[in-house]
């Protein structure tokens, strides 16, 4: 009889082999990388345009013989260019997870092989662990390629070498992205194992994706008073931060509802954590990494909790015989 680790490795190996052969991983990762590169390029063009505006203004003031002391040069933080990159990982990474999860179950159900596997001397736990391990390797590989190319492109585009501290921040966001995409893999896998009809499972998975990744964060953003006016309503009105906080106290219930809607979205937790660690959010820019992580620890716990909860559910839920083969 084969040992359990060997059986898990066999299942995981086949999963990796399958995904590489069918190009499903390379296609989705390629698309994610392409989107991430486009966003990096757009960000760098915007930054370059901002710099040019500054140079033109400065030259104009100097040509008029005026002082340039009041002219603030644009700040340059290369990691801030990763804003669009993070947003693409958030949206396309979740799709990658769902597709891998759906595929992991559908390929077995569609070919009646799940039934055959479950008649081998192999526990349900070993089967699920093999599937999870194989697909997590695929997710880690896909995200590693995306983040490595992202960091490289950042260096090439900005012309500024990334220091060890910058790379550490990117690595931390990479780890959070694994939890985030892994959660969507589990969602797709659990639904495709549980639903009577596979297309229904895919439909429900994408309905959840639409709700949690696109709609909930959008509602939260739309309800944010600071997003009602370009540049921020309080800044436009010249209201200082302490006064802003006082005003918002009168809208505590509204703020709680808005925050709860955002909290329901794992995408928002990933975004808040990543934006803080990379210094994309102004209040965290230039702050020590440990302080930033401590401040956003709740988001990390959320990501970890969602992933761990889905893993527990996957292993606790018995496999339904009626879902082992072709659609019912």
């Amino acid at each position, binding site marked *: 009889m084969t040992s359990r680790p060997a059986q898990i490795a066999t299942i995981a190996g086949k999963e990796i082999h399958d995904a590489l052969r069918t190009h499903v991983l390379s296609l989705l990762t390629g698309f994610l990388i392409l989107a991430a590169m486009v966003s990096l390029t757009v960000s760098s063009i915007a930054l370059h345009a901002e710099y040019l505006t500054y140079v033109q203004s400065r030259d104009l003031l100097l040509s008029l013989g005026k002082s340039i002391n009041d002219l603030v040069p644009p700040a340059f933080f290369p990691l801030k260019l990763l804003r669009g990159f993070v947003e693409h990982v958030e949206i396309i990474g979740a799709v990658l997870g769902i597709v891998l999860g759906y595929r992991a179950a559908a390929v077995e159900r569609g070919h009646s092989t799940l039934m055959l596997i479950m008649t081998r*001397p192999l526990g349900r736990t070993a089967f699920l662990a093999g599937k999870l391990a194989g697909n997590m390797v695929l997710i880690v590989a896909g995200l590693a390629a995306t983040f490595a190319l992202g960091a490289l492109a950042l260096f090439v585009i900005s012309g500024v070498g990334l220091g060890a501290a910058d790379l550490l921040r990117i690595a931390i966001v990479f780890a959070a992205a694994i939890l985030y995409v892994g959660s969507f893999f589990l969602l797709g896998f659990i639904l495709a194992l549980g639903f009577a009809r596979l297309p229904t499972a895919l439909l429900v998975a994408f309905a959840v994706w639409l709700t949690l990744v696109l709609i909930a964060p959008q509602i939260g953003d739309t309800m944010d008073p600071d997003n009602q006016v370009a540049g921020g309503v309080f800044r436009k009105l010249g209201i200082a931060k302490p006064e802003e906080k006082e005003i918002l106290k009168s809208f505590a219930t509204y703020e709680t509802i808005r925050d709860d809607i955002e909290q329901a979205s794992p995408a928002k937790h990933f975004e808040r954590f990543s934006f803080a660690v990379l210094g994309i959010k102004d209040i965290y820019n230039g702050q020590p990494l440990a302080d930033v992580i401590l401040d956003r620890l709740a988001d990390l716990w959320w990501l970890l909790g969602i992933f761990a909860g889905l893993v527990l559910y996957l292993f606790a839920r018995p496999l339904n015989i009626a879902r082992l083969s072709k659609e019912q």
Partner: protein
Amino acid sequence: MDPAIGIDRLSKRYGSLAALDNLTLEIDRSEIFGFLGHNGAGKTTTINILTTLLAPTSGSASICGCDVVADSMKARQHIGYVPENVRLYDSMTARDNLLFFARLSGVREPSQRIGEVLAILDCPELATKRVGDMSKGQRQRIGLAQAILHRPDVLFLDEPTSGLDPLGIKTLRDLIVKLNRTLGMTIFMNTHLISEVSKTCTSIGVLNHGRLAYRDTIAGVLARFGDDQTLEELYLSLTPAAAA
């Protein structure tokens, strides 16, 4: 020696529906047993319980003395299973498919065993062919190959001839007999046609609404019904109430 398959007062209920009702059956080693029944009679439920895929509501079943519920991992070592319309992994070659199942079953020197099994099934040329490019008959052979790789004592076949052309049916029938005679495997097959079992099986059982309506050796069946009756006609003979 324990029987190949022992079933004792086995029942399976889905809510108020009894898919299996107090089924008791014993199948000796090296038998080829044909299990007949109309759609919904409980044949597949029986196979699902015997292959450890489904837990019974009450009663017990064992394979070579291993209880299919309490000792399911051991029971699985004794069984091979070919579901109806087996497909395997389309994008993989027959060898890769078999290698995968051999590893899951703990087969030692799997490559050598795959060669042996394909030789027994007279299809070594299929090893490098993608399963997706195979005919139904060829796929059925590779399905059989995956089921016997670990040399099980009992082989379960669910409607093995379904969808095969006459030549494919004859070839499969010959293979089943060959596996039984050369490897001594007990074979349990669900099927529809008496004409089919008469040429392959050594004994049959007929399931009617979850109950065993008839059990006999093939010689006994042929003496009683002839070899060209359909399942429907057999039922009418066995259950006069249904005919009325």
